[in-house]
């Protein structure tokens, strides 16, 4: 076969050995079907995406080459005319009076808490010369334990976002104009007084309140303005779960679960590793029993779900099922156990066996599940997703009671609600009172009701309220309908406290003065209570301190005086104390009586929480928009996920618009064919389609909040939708096949016996090439060297370099990695990586140094999914180094593959020669390019990590193993006069990983955990037979199932 170049397509046809059989591991349906169809998600097997050659300079930069030349000659002429001998080196401007704790060049860390999103995660804010440059988890916080979810990490960008509300605004002649705080305070206090004297309601519309001091402030507000009512609302909430627990047992909060003690986990559509509950804690506990060093005690995890979630992708048995049948699964399990124990059963439901047959589950799944639940009494638990209905949760509670799961309930601590969320009735009654003109003032506190509840808080309804005040960080759909829009402080500019768990209160302290003319939301309300002319910055600080002194401190029985206690608490960011929580009471069996099967009808719609932009709150955050969805790998969009069979039934391809009609509301959505979805189910992420966010978030994706009504199984699950193709097309952009390790080019040869029968071979090299290596727990227990049996000895014809001192290396435990993406977002923040935008991602130009590759195995209808974090492997024999014509990439004596930006001339030979496809090229100055230089404004400039070079256009970049942190550790060791240890350095991704899957250190230190993992039987290197000697070791995933469902298993 010749290599030919088709000039029109600018694409090289590489020799491909075609075969008709199906590959065993595949990344997309096209790869599975081995088609060359030109759908948009298909990036050519060539390194570059279709259109990557599109390089329109004039459209991107206002600075043409000609202009540059003109400017250069002008400036050199100027320089000659000025005749200065020496180049001016600028100025050094020292402090007038330096704060004692600041030494320029050394970071300071401050403990605080993220409160505004209701998560209450304890954080450490890293600052340099007073500028926050990184937010990470607070290791002393008993719930966070040093970890932070991806939203929390990306929150840093929000603070520097130039689109923040920078001044108070007031509606004048139907336009919001900037004004001063004195004016708005005066006018709003007047409105509050007149509303309260005329008996009209003052409504405070807030999110989840987790701050005890804010709750007290609200009480004070009510005392001052007696007609005040508080509504707290979250688009995604666990109200149903809470209500079900209350009905079942009378308890106020459902219990926490000791996931780390569970041997068998059955999750009914709960995304507990992604969006459901305290995710970081769940991940931490979940991976305890996924320990490759203790394979005999591996947990087994079953997931029943209609959509495809991150949690489902980690299941040993993933049982896909439409939401209508969830109750059948629960009920038939209930019946099985209740019958044995002589307790009440549920009637009218389908049997598990019937469901298994209908949905083509693995044949052993059902018997195994029942067997597991039976034989692990006290160590098995059933978890229900928070989006399920009250009935589902009651049935699940009953099932848990039957299988003895209450031994896994945490009886010493529980979640703590400062103020319970309002239920749907309360919210809609507010809306009807607004309509009838009974609400005088509506204060929207850091929420966006017009977007989340478009029917209740429409422009029309809000116009019937005399004064609508919005306290927000950013403009949003609600601020458009407000009379006053007041900019509020970011979390790390604010004081506060948070209590989300019994026995734990964490504190929030500002680490930077407000960047703009904003105030913190509590201080604004406090000022309206106090009604003082002269606002002082520390008004809420004092209020917080006095509340702690009078209400919180006395109950803690501490021996130290208050001041000392207060400063110690602020320093740690958290204080813990003994607090008894309510132990769950007996289950009331009568509550299951009324549960009836869900009626089967047409298509089901699942509205799910997005892993990154959540309820739409973070739509303006570029880091989060650009993070690829862990399952679909789509960025900058939401889409209608449908199964391959359903898409065939509907006659749609990826990118075809579907019209989904639900209870009379029709919305057009782009199709994404997602292998592994349940049939006749459409899953869509909420939170997209914002219309008044920022240049980043506006018009990204489709708003499906109008679907939400009380007519569904719950607020998030609906049946009876009708779906049809509209014939329109939409461009979805996905990183699915970007930077593909080129496993499609080569297939193993078909092996035939004498008679011509195929006996083996003929599969993609993904497995044979060792990109994804997996085993079953059973197989590994029987033969620990199961993955080492087929390895071949590779040799080098040159002498290898000897690393005598340090040799930096990483290992990633695939048993722990759940694919959450926190690592890659932490990498963006730590290493000043630019966001490129949808169009550029479409060309395959995203810049992330660490990506999570996703592979499917098995059949498209019911595949298993494998994640793999992929970053520069710092190969000993790095192929990129040999081809650089200017020696811009070289190897260090401690094993780093170095990249010297100021030498790089941008030939891109290195990226071309990298087998792992981890090198990234700056096609543009992306910061300047995205949304009109959005990330190059004064405020975002100071967000950059000063220890990492900001790469210019035309320069190659890649993971450095956080060389700035290595240098810092070296310096510290030198200062302290000791030798550097591998454990002195942690990389940003390692710090961020909630599962502690990443280990980094010195490979030559044979006592280290890293060295143990490198030499472990499960440890493997991706593409190791190339003999490039990569230094990232992956520990093969063990699946606790009978088979992997992949053809080329090792026997």
């Amino acid at each position: 076969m010749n290599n030919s170049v088709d000039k029109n397509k600018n694409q090289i046809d590489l020799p491909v050995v075609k075969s008709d059989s199906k590959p065993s591991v595949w990344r997309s349906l096209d790869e599975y079907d081995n088609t060359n169809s030109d759908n948009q998600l298909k990036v050519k097997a060539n390194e570059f995406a279709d259109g990557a050659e599109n390089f329109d300079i004039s459209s991107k930069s206002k600075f043409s080459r000609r202009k540059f030349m003109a400017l250069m000659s002008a400036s050199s002429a100027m320089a000659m005319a000025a005749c200065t001998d020496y180049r001016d080196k600028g100025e050094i401007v020292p402090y007038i009076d330096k704060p004692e704790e600041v030494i320029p060049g050394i970071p300071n860390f401050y403990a605080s808490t993220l409160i505004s999103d209701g998560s209450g995660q304890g954080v450490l804010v890293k600052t340099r010369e007073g500028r926050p440059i990184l937010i990470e988890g607070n290791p002393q916080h008993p719930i966070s334990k040093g970890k932070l979810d991806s939203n929390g990490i990306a929150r840093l960008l929000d603070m520097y976002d130039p689109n923040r509300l920078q001044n108070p605004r007031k509606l004048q002649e139907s336009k919001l104009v900037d004004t001063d705080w004195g004016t708005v305070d005066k006018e709003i206090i007047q409105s509050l007084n007149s509303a309260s004297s005329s008996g009209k309601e003052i409504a405070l519309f807030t999110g989840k309140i987790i701050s005890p001091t804010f709750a007290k402030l609200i009480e004070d507000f009510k005392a001052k303005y007696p007609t005040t009512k508080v509504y707290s609302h979250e688009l995604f909430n666990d109200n149903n779960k809470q209500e079900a627990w209350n009905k079942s047992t009378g308890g106020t909060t459902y219990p926490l679960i000791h996931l780390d003690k569970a041997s068998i986990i059955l999750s009914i559509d709960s995304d507990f590793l992604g969006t459901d509950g305290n995710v970081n804690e769940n991940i931490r506990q979940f991976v305890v029993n996924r320990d490759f060093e203790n394979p005999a005690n591996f947990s087994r995890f079953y997931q029943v779900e209609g959509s495809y979630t991150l949690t489902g992708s980690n299941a040993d048995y993933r049982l896909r099922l439409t939401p209508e049948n969830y109750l059948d699964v629960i009920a038939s399990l209930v019946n099985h156990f209740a019958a044995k124990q002589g307790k009440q059963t549920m009637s009218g439901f389908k049997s598990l066996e019937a469901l298994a047959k209908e949905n083509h589950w693995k044949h052993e799944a059902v018997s195994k599940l029942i067997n597991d639940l039976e034989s692990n009494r006290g160590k098995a638990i059933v978890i229900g997703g928070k989006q399920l209905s009250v009935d589902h949760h009651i049935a699940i509670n009953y099932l848990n009671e039957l299988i003895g799961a209450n031994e896994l309930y945490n009886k010493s601590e529980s979640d703590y609600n400062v103020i319970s969320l309002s239920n749907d009735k309360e919210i809609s009654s507010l809306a009807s009172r607004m309509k009838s003109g009974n609400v005088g003032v509506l204060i929207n506190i850091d929420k966006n009701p017009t977007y989340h509840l478009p029917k209740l808080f429409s422009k029309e309804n809000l116009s019937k309220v005399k004064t609508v005040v919005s306290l927000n960080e950013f403009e949003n759909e609600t601020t458009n309908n407000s009379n006053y829009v007041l900019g509020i402080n970011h979390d790390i500019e604010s004081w506060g406290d948070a209590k989300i768990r019994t026995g734990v209160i964490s504190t929030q302290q500002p680490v930077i003065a407000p960047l703009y003319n904003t105030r913190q939301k509590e201080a604004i309300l406090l000022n309206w209570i106090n009604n003082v002319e002269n606002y002082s910055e520390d008004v809420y600080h004092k209020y917080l301190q006095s509340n702690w002194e009078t209400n919180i401190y006395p109950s803690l029985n501490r021996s130290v005086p208050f001041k000392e206690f207060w400063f110690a608490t602020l320093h740690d960011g958290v204080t813990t104390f003994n607090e008894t929580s309510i132990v769950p009471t007996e289950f009331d069996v009568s509550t299951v009586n009324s549960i009836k099967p869900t009626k089967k009808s047409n298509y089901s719609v699942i509205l799910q929480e997005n892993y990154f932009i959540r309820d739409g709150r973070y739509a303006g955050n570029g880091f989060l928009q650009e993070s690829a969805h862990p399952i679909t790998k789509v960025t900058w969009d939401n889409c209608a996920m449908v199964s391959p069979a359903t898409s065939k039934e509907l006659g749609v391809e990826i990118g075809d618009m579907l019209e989904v009609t639900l209870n009379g509301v029709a919305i057009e959505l782009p199709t994404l064919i997602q292998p592994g979805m349940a049939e006749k189910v459409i899953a869509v992420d909420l939170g997209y389609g914002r219309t008044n966010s920022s240049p980043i978030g506006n018009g990204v994706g489709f708003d499906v909040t109008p679907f939400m009504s009380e007519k569904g199984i719950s607020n998030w699950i609906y049946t009876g939708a009708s779906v049809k193709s509209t014939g329109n097309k939409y461009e979805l952009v996905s990183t699915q096949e970007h930077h593909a390790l080129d496993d499609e080019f080569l297939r193993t040869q078909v092996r035939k016996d004498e008679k011509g029968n195929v006996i083996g071979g003929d599969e993609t090299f993904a497995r044979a090439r060792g990109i994804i290596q997996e085993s079953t727990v059973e197989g590994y227990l029987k033969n620990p060297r199961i993955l080492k049996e087929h390895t071949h000895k590779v040799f080098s014809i040159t002498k290898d370099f000897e690393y005598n001192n340090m040799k930096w290396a990483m290992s990633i435990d695939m048993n722990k990695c759940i694919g959450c993406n926190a690592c890659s977002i932490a990498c963006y923040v730590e290493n000043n990586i630019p966001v490129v935008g949808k169009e550029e991602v479409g060309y395959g130009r995203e810049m992330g140094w660490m990506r999570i590759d996703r592979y499917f195995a098995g059949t498209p209808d019911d595949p298993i999914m494998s994640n793999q974090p992929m970053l520069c492997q710092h190969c000993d024999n790095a192929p990129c180094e040999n081809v650089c014509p200017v020696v811009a990439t070289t190897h260090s004596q401690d094993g780093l593959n170095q990249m010297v930006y100021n030498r790089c001339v941008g030939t891109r030979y290195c990226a071309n020669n990298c087998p792992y496809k981890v090198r990234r090229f700056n096609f543009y100055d992306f910061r300047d390019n995205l949304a009109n230089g959005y990330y190059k404004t004064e405020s975002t400039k100071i967000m950059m990590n000063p220890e990492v070079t900001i790469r210019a256009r035309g320069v190659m970049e890649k993971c450095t193993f956080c060389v700035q942190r290595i240098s810092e550790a070296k310096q510290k060791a030198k200062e302290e006069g000791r030798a550097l240890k591998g454990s002195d350095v942690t990389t940003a991704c390692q710090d961020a990983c909630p599962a502690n899957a990443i280990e980094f250190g010195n490979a030559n230190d044979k006592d280290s955990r890293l060295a143990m993992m490198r030499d472990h039987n499960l440890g493997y290197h991706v593409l190791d037979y190339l003999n490039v000697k990569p230094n990232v070791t992956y520990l093969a995933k063990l699946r606790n199932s009978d088979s992997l469902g992949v053809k080329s298993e090792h026997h």
Partner: protein
Amino acid sequence: MKKSVLDYGLRVRLPITIMVILISYAITFYVSRSERDGVGYKPDQPINFSHKLHAGEMGIDCQYCHVGVEKSRHAVVPQASTCMNCHTMAKTDSPEIKKLTNYYESGEAIPWKRVHQVPEYAYFNHSAHVNAGIDCASCHGDIASMEKVEQVHAFNMANCLSCHRAPHEKMPYLADEIKKGPEDCSACHR
């Protein structure tokens, strides 16, 4: 054959012109070397501070003012309040000290002119060098004898590497203690 004007231009004038350009370029390049490296750069400072007086005659330790030098990447130019430790009392009527007092009291930062600078793509670390025992003067010259601070060594990669490769020759006073400096790219560039 008659010579044309064009011939003359091509054979005589053009080579001469090119030679003149090349020679003058070479001479300028050679002569201006130190200027391009910044050697001899001696800017006027907003306050006429004398290192000769403070560090030389009075013998104040470098680290009394440059506090970051052992702990941080930056040596740190002292904050105005450090100066005021003494100058609230000492020589308060001198015009230069009046300037200082003025800056301090008005809260305005003093815009010292920068004398030494490594390019922004090189991450030089003071603490690593000072903690290895290297004398300030090895890079900065004999500051204690300078009335006005001046750059004496080139701050370029060749100069860095000359010490990293042969520290014993360059710094004989550290003959026994010092090891070779790293020559990996990532030691300075990241």
